[in-house]
């Protein structure tokens, strides 16, 4: 081993060359910035985040013959499958006037959160090459992922609206549909926070991705994706807890607006607003606190 790098190993000879340096004009490299400066630095990279997310989304289907037609085609096939099984074969109504519509809204909006969670799980390993080449704030990588998932939802949500109109029993556009983008914006904020949170969590403990998969499955049942919560859950405490769940609130708001033509009560909007802002703030601060540990071997 090297004995020569430590002056104490050879007490008889001073084994070090003292070099005086003025650090004026130099700044520490590779240290985490304070939150405010971090946000400003992150803002400098907003064009990169947008361009990267868009480019990766638009090139993902390059190998396919139909190319980007799949951005719409995939959700259409998904929705058609559910309609075929539940609407045509089972003719399920679950006591609802428009069960196929209920199911399609549930499946599509749940897919937004589920795919964001998956994106968060793989964000730091998938972005490893980027992290090893550029010294930008590390939040660039998960935020680009979150934006890609959001952009991916736009064609999916348009096909969802088309299916609601086309498939019987038809849900026709009403004024209340104009508020749906508000739900999507709140869902986007909530999901972005989730991506940031899961990105850090699984970059340190990759094993947690197994647990997260289980949580996703629980969320399917606990958010009323396929059935109405109050019809199957009779225990009032459990029902109260589950209706606070953000994914349930997202689905319920969208269903009221799209199927029932009702403007949802203010307390539900406020609840989702708290979840959205809370998720983003907690996710961001948690991710930022781990800034120095990403992209290592």
């Amino acid at each position, binding site marked *: 081993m*090297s004995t*020569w*790098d*430590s002056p104490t190993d050879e007490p008889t000879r*001073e*084994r*070090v*060359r*003292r*070099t*005086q*340096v*003025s*650090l*004026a*004009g*130099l*700044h*520490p*490299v*590779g*240290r985490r910035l304070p939150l405010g400066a971090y946000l400003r630095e992150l803002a*400098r*990279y907003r*064009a*990169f985040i947008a*361009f*990267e997310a868009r*480019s*990766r989304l638009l*090139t993902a289907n*390059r190998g396919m013959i139909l190319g980007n037609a799949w951005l719409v085609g995939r959700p259409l096939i998904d929705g058609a499958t559910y309609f075929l099984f539940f609407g045509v074969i089972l003719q399920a109504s679950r006591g609802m006037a428009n069960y196929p519509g209920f199911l399609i809204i549930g499946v599509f909006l749940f897919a937004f959160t589920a795919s964001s969670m998956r994106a968060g799980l793989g964000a730091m390993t998938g972005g490893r*090459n*980027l*992290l*090893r*080449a*550029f*010294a*930008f704030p590390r939040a660039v990588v998960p935020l680009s992922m979150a934006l890609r998932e959001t952009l991916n939802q736009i064609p999916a949500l348009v096909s969802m609206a088309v299916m609601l109109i086309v498939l019987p029993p038809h849900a026709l556009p009403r004024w209340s549909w104009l508020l749906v983008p508000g739900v999507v914006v709140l869902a986007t904020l909530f999901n972005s926070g989730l991506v940031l949170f899961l990105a850090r969590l699984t970059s340190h403990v990759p094993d947690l991705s197994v647990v997260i998969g289980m949580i996703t499955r629980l969320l399917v049942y606990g958010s009323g994706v396929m059935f109405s919560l109050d019809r199957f859950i009779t225990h009032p405490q459990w029902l109260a807890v589950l209706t606070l769940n953000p994914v349930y609130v997202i689905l319920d708001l969208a269903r009221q607006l799209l199927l029932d033509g009702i403007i949802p009560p203010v307390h539900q909007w406020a609840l989702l607003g708290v979840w959205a802002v809370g998720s983003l703030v907690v996710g961001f601060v948690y991710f930022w606190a781990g800034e*120095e*540990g990403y*992209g*290592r*071997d």
Partner: protein
Amino acid sequence: MTEPAGPRDALRPTVVVDSVSVNYVVRSESGHRRRRLFAGSGSTEVIHALQKVSLVVNAGEVVGIVGQNGSGKSTLLRIIAGLETPASGQVYAVGSPILLGVNAALIPELSGRDNVTLGLLAMGMSRAEIAEATPDVLSLAGIGRAINRPMKTYSSGMGARLRFAIAAAAHPEILLIDEALGTGDAASKGRSAERIEQLREHAGTVFLVSHAAQTIEESCSRAVWLHDGAIIDDGPAPDVARTYRWWAWCVAKGEHARAEQVLADRRAAWVPVQVVSRPERRDRSAAIVRRERS
């Protein structure tokens, strides 16, 4: 930058590496072949990738880093670039050092032109700066109309030229080149070599990592030899490169005793640097960097 320009401007430090150590903990499977329930319960080994490395580099220097595989060359570069945080010690630098490795941000399915935009954005340039820099990048890359084709259709030479042109466009004050990243071959040829020279003249500092002592000798003013994560030589590029070549030749020929002797001689002669931060506004007439043997 903040120091007044003057005759000592040539000794303006741009990179100060202060006693940096980097450790990697890896799982070791040597020893018993017993099956373990948990992967983590096996013995772990700590690899000292860098051990108390100190280095002061001034404006205008082109520093070559030589050393065998696994000696810590690429790790040192990543630490200087701020891509990894050392276990102890600190790097100080002027501006944002840029590692010539934009290939990481590029998307093979995207056209060369869009990749130029993507690469420049990744280095933190604004849209306006990109619009201004793009014509230069295209002419330096010199790949003509192929710029509109997806990058995955490029030959490796064309790809390397484009990557180098993108990285050089950021006008970094500190440019880090790792030959292992596949951009070095392009960097050492023709127009690209001229560009490195230009960057250096812009009071820039260039670091070049290479296995080939020849490359270091030809293109660097100073060379640093890393062995097992520690510096064992630092001086004018021809001197360091020649010793390193002699050692590498001995290793290649299987003359291990001789190779060990070269290392032992180097270690005996080498005096490590200790960085002492000089308080500012004191004794401005003193040299910016003063080396003294105590």
